[in-house]
Structures are given as C-alpha cells and as structure tokens.
C-alpha cells in the first residue's frame, strides 16, 4: 500500500526516503496526532474522575438520562444506547470504505463514505436533542438541577404551589449548589461532539474527492485510511465517555 514513495528513494536510506514504521508520513503523523488528542481527553476525564471521587454526592445517571424523544421519563440509558449504536455503526461503514479503497473500488468507497457521513450527522442530531432536553430541565454549564442539595428547596417550592418543573428552575437559578456534574458533562461531551462535527466535515470533503476521482487518479485511497483513523478515534473516545458518564 504505502510503498509508493519508497521505490523512488531506494539506496538513500539516510535521506528520509525509507519508511522505518512501514507507514507513510501522513499516516504516521495522524497516529501521533491521535496519541496527543488521546492525552487531551485523558486530562479531561482525569479531572472528571478526581472531582467525582472528591464529591460527597453525585447525580445518578439513571435519573439524569432517562428521556428519549417522545418519552419524558422512565427510559434510562435508552437514548444513549441508540447514540452508541449509531457511532459504532458509522465506524463499521468507515472501515468498509477503507477496505473498498484497498480494492480501488471507487463506487463502493463513495457508498460507504456516504453512510459514514449520515451516521455522523445522526449522532450529532441525537446529541443536539439530548443537550436541548437537558437545557429545558434547567441544566447548563453553571447550573445543575440534579444536585441532591437542591431537593429540599424544590420540595419547598412545590409545597408553595409551583409545578415540579417551575420549582426546579427556580431552585437551580436562586440556590447556590454544586454544578461540577453538568459543567464536566457539557465540557467533555461538547469537546467530543466538536470532534464528531470536524470528522463529519472532513468525511464530506473526502467523499466529494472520492466522487471526483481524485484518489482514483492518485492510484491509492490512503486518504480514506487516514481520515478513517480519526473517525475510529472519535468512536473510541465515545466508548470511554459513555462508560464514565452514563454507566459508572
């Protein structure tokens, strides 16, 4: 596959012509970028872990994430399950596009890339719904309606004749409380979502390139492979975010 640049430089191994890692410059740099990006996410999740370990109480994920479109409550983890499935599925279509690229099959690469773009867009749509729903419940980067210390105030406001929703919004706006949970949730899923968005944009660009025959003329589909590495990494990060925010 990536032997195209080696042949031209044979016999000049100290002139940067050989590939000691058996991978092209671009692919190698993508790997090292992903390694550094992994450390960025590690830092965010480590901060989350330290704060959560130090907290005296924490929001229960089965309570926070119990809604789906059309289901107001009582469906814990169902919606995030759908999101996880969508992202794994789009990882599969991406690797199928890479596989088709190795066979130089332009039509199949384009087909699987379009599915990958659709999967990424669906995931972003799901995340937009999830965030909007949490905002409507009064959550934001500095407000945590799931904080246990707000419960007595919410009950007090409900006793004064407010609906549970109004009471929660009033409590979350007026009573000082610990908002580490929502702050970390929106920061980390937001940072991941931004990676998905970038991935979808890059996927669209290479899909258009593949359609235009750019890689066919180049003689290889290595670009699909490099972008594929990034896309799988986004899936990989989600696997960890899913475990530490929704399960643990």
């Amino acid at each position: 596959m990536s032997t195209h640049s080696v042949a031209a430089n044979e016999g000049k191994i100290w002139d940067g012509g050989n590939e000691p890692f058996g991978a092209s410059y671009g692919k190698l740099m993508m790997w090292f970028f992903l390694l550094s990006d992994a450390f960025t996410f590690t830092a965010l999740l480590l901060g989350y872990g330290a704060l959560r370990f130090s907290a005296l109480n924490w929001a229960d994920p089965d309570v926070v994430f119990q809604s789906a479109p059309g289901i107001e409550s009582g469906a814990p983890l169902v919606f995030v399950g759908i999101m996880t499935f969508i992202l794994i599925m789009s990882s599969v279509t991406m690797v199928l596009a890479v596989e088709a690229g190795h066979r130089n099959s332009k039509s199949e690469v384009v087909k699987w890339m379009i599915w990958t773009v659709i999967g990424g867009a669906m995931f972003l749509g799901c995340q937009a719904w999830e965030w909007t729903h949490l905002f409507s419940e009064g959550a934001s980067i500095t407000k945590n309606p799931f904080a246990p210390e707000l419960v007595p105030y919410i009950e007090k406001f409900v006793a004064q004749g407010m609906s549970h929703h109004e009471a929660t919004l009033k409590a979350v706006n007026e009573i000082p409380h610990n908002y580490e949970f929502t702050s970390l949730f929106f920061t980390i899923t937001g940072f991941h979502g931004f990676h998905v968005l970038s991935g979808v944009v890059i996927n669209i660009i290479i899909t258009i390139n593949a359609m235009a025959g750019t890689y066919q003329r180049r003689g290889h589909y290595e670009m699909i492979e490099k972008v594929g590495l990034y896309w799988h990494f986004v899936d990989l990060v989600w696997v960890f975010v899913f475990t530490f925010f929704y399960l643990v």
Partner: protein
Amino acid sequence: MAGFDTKQIWKVFFILLAITVLEFLIALTPALEGLRTDYKLAVNLTYVVLTLFKAFYIIAYFMHLKFEKINLVYSIALPPVFVIYCIVLVLYEGGYWNGIRKENVTSNQKIEQVENHAPEHH
C-alpha cells in the same frame, strides 16, 4: 491485506455490539439492583474492563494497529500505559479530598450541636 476483509469487520462489529449489550444488561436488569448497590466498585471495574476490551477491538482491528509494524505498535500503545499511574495518583488524591470534606461536614455538625445546646448549659 491482512485484517481487512469484510467478514472480519462484521465479526468485530458484533463483538462490540455484544459487549455494549452486556453493559446495558448489567446497568439495567432489575434483578441485579442489589448487586449494583452492594458491589458498586466491582460493577464499575467490570464496566472499565469491558470498555478496555472495546477499545482494544477498535484500535487493533478498525484502526488496524494490530497489523502494523511492531515499532509503530509500541510507539502508539506504550505511552498510554503510563497514564494508568496518573489515573491512580489523581483518583487517590480525589479520595483524600473526599475524606477532608466528610470530616468538615461532621465537625460542622458538631459545632452546630454545641451552639444549639450551649444556652441550656448556662
């Protein structure tokens, strides 16, 4: 090319799906409610191990790292190993803060009790 046939890809997909379904079963099966509250640490460690399995399959097969040259495999796979040490340090520190906060809560309660009862003793 090694590791890149359609059968293998779908096999890995079903492994990932099965692990995810298993995680959901552990998290949601009502019969396991007692297990989840009594053995919280063990259940959480199970989630982490299952997550690491998923991470392995994504990196090894989807990202194809298993089939790269061994020096590329080591330069990517070894640095994150040192993260484990960092995780242990940071979580241990978090636990220490937790202890301080608990102490603060109890000592504040004691102060309140003393203040509430003080006039009676005079």
